[in-house]
């Protein structure tokens, strides 16, 4: 038996045999953890459950938590009768459009702010951060009028433009934080060797911060995808995004819970997958690089 296993066995034994007060404390501690985990996960689990329960079971009292025959009828109805796929596609177009253009123009901006001693760069950077603090509704009235005047209300183009307010500051700040941490000597030696500034940026800096760019892009994708308010103001009819369709099918009289559960599950699915893949960078993204992990 190798000595590496000893500490583990020791702790298991302690859990079982040491004085009862300590055992009780450990039990309470893990019990509390289980309660917290259930509190966090149950609402998500329940939405998923309802989406695969037959209508009779949903309306059943008492509710069935575990044992029922799962059905896919709500998902089928969602994509055939309600053509939810089209609204998911709208959400996707807006998010991908806003994120990709933000990456293309935001990464050079981050480089410029980080490396090129822009006059007043500190203030410009802080101003970019502050645009993220604006409550969107406070500026939506003038923007709504502007977009109506130029015929971009009820269009995905207009919505994509406004979504830059979500994606651009985020990408600039996260990527800037990473460029700040790169040693300057890498580019400087490349430039001594005859690269010009653009080459140094494209061939040295961008590949090195690529993971950060990807993380920033996916995190801002989540926020663009989740957004409801901007779409509520700027789209309607066929240009609605997925959250907007969910909201408008929640009347107060008769609600088709199975189908809504399916719509909610499909809508959160990409976000859940992305955030699980990025779980180590997520907090950094949510705080725009203020918290490093």
């Amino acid at each position, binding site marked *: 038996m190798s000595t590496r296993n000893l500490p583990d066995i020791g702790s298991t034994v302690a859990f079982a045999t040491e004085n009862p007060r300590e055992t009780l404390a450990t039990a309470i501690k893990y019990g509390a953890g289980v309660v917290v985990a259930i509190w966090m996960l149950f609402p998500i689990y329940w939405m998923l459950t309802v989406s695969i329960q037959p209508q009779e079971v949903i309306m059943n009292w008492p509710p069935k938590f575990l044992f029922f025959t799962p059905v896919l009828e709500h998902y089928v109805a969602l994509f055939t009768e309600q053509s939810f796929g089209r609204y998911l596609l709208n959400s996707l177009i807006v998010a991908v459009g806003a994120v990709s253009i933000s990456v293309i123009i935001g990464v050079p901006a981050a480089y410029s702010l980080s490396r090129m001693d822009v006059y007043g760069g500190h203030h410009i950077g802080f101003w970019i951060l502050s645009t993220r603090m604006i409550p969107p509704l406070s500026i939506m009235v003038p923007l709504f009028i502007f977009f109506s005047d130029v015929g971009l209300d009820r269009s995905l183009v207009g919505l994509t433009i406004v979504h830059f307010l979500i994606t651009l500051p985020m990408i600039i700040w996260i990527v800037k934080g990473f460029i700040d941490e790169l040693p300057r000597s890498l580019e400087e030696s490349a430039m001594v060797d005859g690269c010009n500034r653009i080459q140094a940026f494209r061939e040295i800096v961008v590949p090195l911060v690529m993971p950060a760019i990807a993380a920033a892009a996916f995190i801002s994708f989540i926020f663009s995808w989740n957004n409801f308010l901007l779409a509520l103001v700027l789209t309607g009819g066929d240009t609605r995004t997925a959250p907007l369709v969910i909201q408008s099918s929640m009347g107060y009289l008769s609600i088709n819970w199975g189908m809504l*559960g399916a719509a909610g599950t499909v809508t959160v699915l990409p976000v859940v997958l992305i955030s699980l893949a990025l779980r180590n960078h997520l907090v950094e993204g949510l705080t725009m690089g203020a918290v490093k992990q």
Partner: protein
Amino acid sequence: MLGAKYVRSRVDWGDSREPLLNRVDISDRTLKWLFLLPSVAILAFLAIYPFIQGIWMSFHEWPLAADTRMWVGLGNYEALVESDRFLGSARATVIFTGVSVGLELIIGVALALYLRSLSSNWRPVFRTIFILPMVMTPIATGLMWRLLLNGQIGVVNWMIINFLGMSPPAWTSSPMVAMATVIMIDIWQWTPLIVMIVYAGLLSIPETMYEAARVDGAPRLAVFRHITLPQIKYMIGIAVVFRLMRSFRSFDIIWLVTNGGPGTATEILNIYLYRVAFVNLQGGQAAALGIILLVVTIAITMGIIRGLGMQ
């Protein structure tokens, strides 16, 4: 002359196999602005233009459905300050933001301490669980909770009746309870963010500080007050800034769960502003409200950021 020049440049173009961008020589002085310009221009259009236009609109009676506009000076602001509905929604905003962020802070710090006390096997499990609520699409969060708290099929009511033997509260139909309900949902969604930020702060405390305290036999509360708390104060500040920023833009969940009701009990400023602008179509009044909201938000968050010395 002209011909020779043309030929030489033709040769240059033909010879080089490098991409065009690499050969264009732009001085750093130009380049740094070229790099910045698109982003700054877009953000200026999206943030500065509507702010200035909003100020201009707020001095007018500016119906969104018609082309008439009339200068009223500070009339819109005066009307707002005198209206009970505005004052009510300002109060609802203060209660909603204050209570939810306050409770999230207490629960969040407690859970972060709990997370650190776990063994390294369990930490990643809990970290993953904590990530899920905060990335949920807010409309889906609202949907989940409407489903859970529903009067006919709501599973929470069923649990309260069967496990606790009490009659369930009127989740969204009594003014006080409706406010508590939306605060509860906000706590569900956003406590994890505080947990993760504070936890990142806890991890940066050197273990030696705790060892020293243990050698001295310091009681747990003293360790928390004199070692842990001063070390995570900055992280708590960051958490508060980001929670406040988010709280001032809350809209989706309240819109979906209570729709600002019953009556105007949960009508926070954002909901009121949406109604003034896009239901009543009073553009001038809405612009004035927007300016007030924006100035207050920026003042509060900037104040905290400067106080923390985060800049």
